[in-house]
């Protein structure tokens, strides 16, 4: 039986992530944990996150999990970042007057802006970007197996990831402009949306993760 560790650093609701993973693959043992050993021994690791990024990074560091995440990245085992768990992988976030992140990937996390408009209609767009938006896959990847191009996933966020190297963009979405909503490099895959709240396609993505060997 393979096992997946959902990293628990005390920020927000991991219940849904764990439940969705269990639902996607009843044969997988899901551990919600901050224990270094357990995370390092797991076959796969999920890094979730909701709330303010400074608190997230702060707790990750306080619990020594920044080193563990880097260790997992280097180990080659599949790592999935979700929402703020994607953002913390970048170098820096503009949120909370500027927050240094884990710098696994070069790039910044920026605010959508208070005057965001839809270029086609001229309509003002609300922040947070909340609801079901289309995810346009940039290329084939095992994580997109059985998920349609432009399938809708559930988002809720006010900041978005701008990778320095556009080649790591695995998907984009459109909200006032086109922005990166998934990144991947080697054994790391990360998404801005919430698969655990995205019904069938979200569960499929978790299923794909639980079948993924960490190679694109």
């Amino acid at each position, binding site marked *: 039986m393979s096992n997946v560790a959902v990293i628990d650093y005390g920020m*927000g*609701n991991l*219940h*849904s992530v764990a*439940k*969705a993973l269990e*639902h996607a693959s009843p044969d997988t043992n899901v551990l919600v944990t901050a224990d270094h050993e357990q995370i390092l021994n797991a076959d796969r690791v999920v890094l979730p996150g*909701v*709330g*303010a990024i400074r608190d997230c990074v702060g707790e990750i560091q306080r619990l020594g999990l920044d080193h563990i995440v880097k260790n997992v990245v280097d180990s080659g085992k599949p790592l999935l970042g979700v929402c703020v768990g994607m953002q913390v992988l970048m170098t820096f976030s503009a949120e909370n007057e500027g927050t240094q992140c884990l710098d696994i990937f070069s790039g910044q996390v920026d605010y959508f802006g*208070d005057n965001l408009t*839809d270029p086609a209609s001229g309509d003002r*767009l*609300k*922040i*947070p*970007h*909340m*609801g*079901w*938006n*289309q995810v346009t896959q940039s290329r084939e990847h095992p994580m997109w197996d059985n998920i349609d191009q*432009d399938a*809708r996933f*559930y*988002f*809720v*966020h*006010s900041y978005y990831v701008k990778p320095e190297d556009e080649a790591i963009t695995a998907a984009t*979405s*459109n*909200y006032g402009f086109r922005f990166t909503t998934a990144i991947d490099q080697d054994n790391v895959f990360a998404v801005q949306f*919430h698969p*655990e*709240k*995205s*019904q069938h396609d*979200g*569960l499929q993505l978790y299923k794909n993760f639980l079948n993924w060997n960490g190679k694109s």
Partner: protein
Amino acid sequence: MGLAKRIIPCLDVDNGRVVKGVQFVDIRDAGDPVEVARRYDEQGADEITFLDITASSDDRETMVHVVEEVAGQVFIPLTVGGGIRKVEDIRRMLNAGADKVAINTAAVFNPEFVREASEKFGAQCIVVAIDAKKVSDEGEPLRWEIFTHGGRKPTGIDAIEWAQKMVDYGAGEILLTSMDRDGTKIGFDLDLTRAISDAVTVPVIASGGVGNLDHLSEGVTKGHADAVLAASIFHFGEYSIAEAKQNMADHGIEVRV
């Protein structure tokens, strides 16, 4: 193409049971929140809102179990409102699997609670529910006030100013109910919906008064709502969520199908 407008069925739950008689022809137990939520999920609901109307606070624990059960089986966003008065209430609901909580009366009596909640849990999970009623007379500029106690008690607070204040305090979304229209089935108060939606930066959910599918679409096209919430038209099987989405699509509104 981009973000879809959302359709949100709302379930009133009393002591763990769905009330106001949800009627699906082929459902085994129409009072079971888990079964009803699953049905709406299958029909394509974009989110589900539970309103806990349990009178006694001793029985609130029941709602936590309901949320746990639903969250283990339904993988779309869940909002819980009713009886959210303390930080601890929010924590329990989020830990049980809710994605958002709706704060209503507690915000009116203690606005700082919204700020505290938003700082602690993030604006993305704090919905402020606003019950508004028109107070302007015929011929006067339109004006709405916040009412509490199911629309019975006026507060003297202007609805637009209140909505803006709640966003400043950290609301991530506004659930706006017209107390004039609630239960009437004659459609949303579109003037109110548009006034609030245009006045705030966060998404607004329109509620109160839906009697047919065109009402839902109007909430978006004329009321500028980002999401529409309805209870009875879905519960009694008059219309399905899929039909509602088709109607919205026919009106040129982007929806998730």
